[in-house]
């Protein structure tokens, strides 16, 4: 049965080559765009070294501080809050505090370079899985004693030392000098948590003002003992928030945040205007899916249009099939299968095109340190999109075809 459908489908596609070409172009073009977008999203949110333990890690990305004068401040957390209330959580196995990355200047051989500098504690290196190319991380002791040591990425090592071993040598960034402790592979700029060019201990900050800052630039990373602990960590943080005492209680009244994944944090930032820490990931997912469907709307309409206008061409076939015992349901099945086949071919073309484009995008260096690779997740997104597209654009023409009255169809009259 399916074989028969496929035979017919391929014949129909070949008979009207120009049509098929138009349809295939529309489908594969759309799917290329969708696959590229999902590759970008996957690059930002999916597991990618060094953030490989995604099933066990949560972060605190933004906090919302309510002020007594009815204003509020949203952004990275102040240091005192994370130090006093997050570091002390009992459920996580490890907690790391780190700063947002700052653009700083480095002068190499009279030329200025902008580098991103991130300040972290020692635990940072235990939670994230950096593969050191040379040397190793700095430690909690380095952080405690404010040793001027740094971990740098490959690009920075190349910039300063031109392929020579870097460990033990000194770099000057932002007017400070650090001894290189280790070299790690480049992390793409999308990775909010792990991205930087240079990582140095928190305590090497130029001034210790950050310890008392009321608005901050710090984030936390929490590692659970096992994946099942994540809800418990979320819960413990919420109960802890209830007893937060502000250094300046006249100014601040409450703090709202959640231990969450980056995706959840972005979703909360977009949708969470309420004064709670609910999980809005579903909303964001829905929004993305909705946009994807909207994006597929126009090419789908084209395909529907073409398919509907071809009913006449196939009237005889429809009549014969009905006369020999195909029910309307069976016919709908057949035409939907045909359409899905077409979109899957389009999907395959789109997949190959995306592979090339992703490689080109990686090679172009347009996005700093990005290294796009096709993986099974993107493949599955693409497949799902193609299937959805096929069903979406196939059902209406198929239904219309199946409604064709066999007597009219066999008489070969117009509809």
């Amino acid at each position, binding site marked *: *049965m399916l*074989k*028969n459908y496929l*035979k*017919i489908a391929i*014949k*129909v596609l070949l*008979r009207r080559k120009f049509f098929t070409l138009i349809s295939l172009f529309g489908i594969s073009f759309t799917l290329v765009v969708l696959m590229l977008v999902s590759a970008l999203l996957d690059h930002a949110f999916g597991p990618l070294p060094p953030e490989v333990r995604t099933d066990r890690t949560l972060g605190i990305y933004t906090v919302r501080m309510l002020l007594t004068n009815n204003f509020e401040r949203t952004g990275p957390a102040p240091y005192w809050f994370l130090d006093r209330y997050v570091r002390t959580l009992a459920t996580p196995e490890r907690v790391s505090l780190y700063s947002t990355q700052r653009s700083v200047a480095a002068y190499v051989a009279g030329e200025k370079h902008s580098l991103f500098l991130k300040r972290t504690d020692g635990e940072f290196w235990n939670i994230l899985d950096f593969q050191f190319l040379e040397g190793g991380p700095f430690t909690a002791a380095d952080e405690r004693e404010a040793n001027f040591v740094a971990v740098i990425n490959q690009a920075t090592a190349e910039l300063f030392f031109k392929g020579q071993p870097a460990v033990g040598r000194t770099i000057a960034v932002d007017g400070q000098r650090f001894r290189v402790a280790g070299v790690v592979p480049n992390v793409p700029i999308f990775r909010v948590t792990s991205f930087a060019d240079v990582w140095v201990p928190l305590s090497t900050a130029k001034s210790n003002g950050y310890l008392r800052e009321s608005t901050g630039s710090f984030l936390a990373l929490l590692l659970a003992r096992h994946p099942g602990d994540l809800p418990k960590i979320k819960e413990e943080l919420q109960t802890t928030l209830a007893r937060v005492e502000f250094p300046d209680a006249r100014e601040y009244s409450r703090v709202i945040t959640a231990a969450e994944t980056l995706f959840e944090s972005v979703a909360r930032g977009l949708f969470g205007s309420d004064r709670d820490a609910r999980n809005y990931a579903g909303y964001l997912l829905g929004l993305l899916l909705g946009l994807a469907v909207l994006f597929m709307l126009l090419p789908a309409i084209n395909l529907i249009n073409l398919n509907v206008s071809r009913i006449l061409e196939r009237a*005889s*076939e429809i*009549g*014969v*099939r*009905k*006369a*020999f*015992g*195909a*029910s*309307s*349901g*069976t016919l709908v099945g057949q035409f939907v299968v045909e359409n899905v086949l077409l979109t899957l071919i389009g999907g395959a073309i789109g997949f190959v095109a995306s592979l090339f484009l992703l490689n080109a995008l990686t090679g172009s260096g347009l996005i700093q340190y990005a290294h796009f690779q096709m993986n099974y997740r993107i493949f599955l997104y693409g497949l799902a999109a193609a299937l959805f597209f096929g069903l979406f654009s196939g059902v209406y023409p198929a239904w219309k075809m199946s409604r064709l*009255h*066999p*007597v009219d169809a*066999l*008489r*070969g009259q117009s509809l």
Partner: protein
Amino acid sequence: MIQLEEVEKVYRTDKIETLALSRCNLQVREGEFIAVMGPSGSGKSTLLNLIGLLDEPTKGRIMLNGSAIASFRDKQLARLRNEYIGFIFQSFHLINDLSVVDNVEIPLLYRRMSNGERRRLALAALERVGLTSRVHHFPSQLSGGQQQRVAIARAIVGKPKVLLADEPTGNLDSHMGDEIMSILFDLNRNENTTVVMVTHDPRLGEMAGRIVRLFDGRQVN
């Protein structure tokens, strides 16, 4: 086995109402060879489509083995067409995109059976109409007579009780037409297949066991 009681069929378009068939009573018994005759536009094809369950009467009722078909739903009708009835058309209506054997297999696609079994039955039907040498050709590569024989093979592959033929020889020369007719008579005589055939060739009509004459949508006997 098929009984039409006071059947009336009216075709409606936006402006015109056409009475295609009026108060028609007809009993088709098992093993009969009926010829439906009349000038063009007299309702022959309409009658055949009604017997073949492709169309529903505007008034009156059609009984199949004692039950009214008006009570059947699309799915059940499709199944009855599949198992009970085989169609042969004047203009063959073969699917040009499928090979001869694939065309013959079509009625079997809507039954549960293995691909091998389907192929075996299709080849047997083609043998029955003497076309074993052309199974992998496409319809466009065959002559008119050969195409009609493929259509007959398609009609009989599912071993239907009733064969409905709408001017099966209308597009063929007399030599080929005779060939087709001999196959139909053979099926009627040796396999007890009921045949209802529309024709306006009196020569063919006389060879049938019974003639139903139509004029302006009315039965004249």
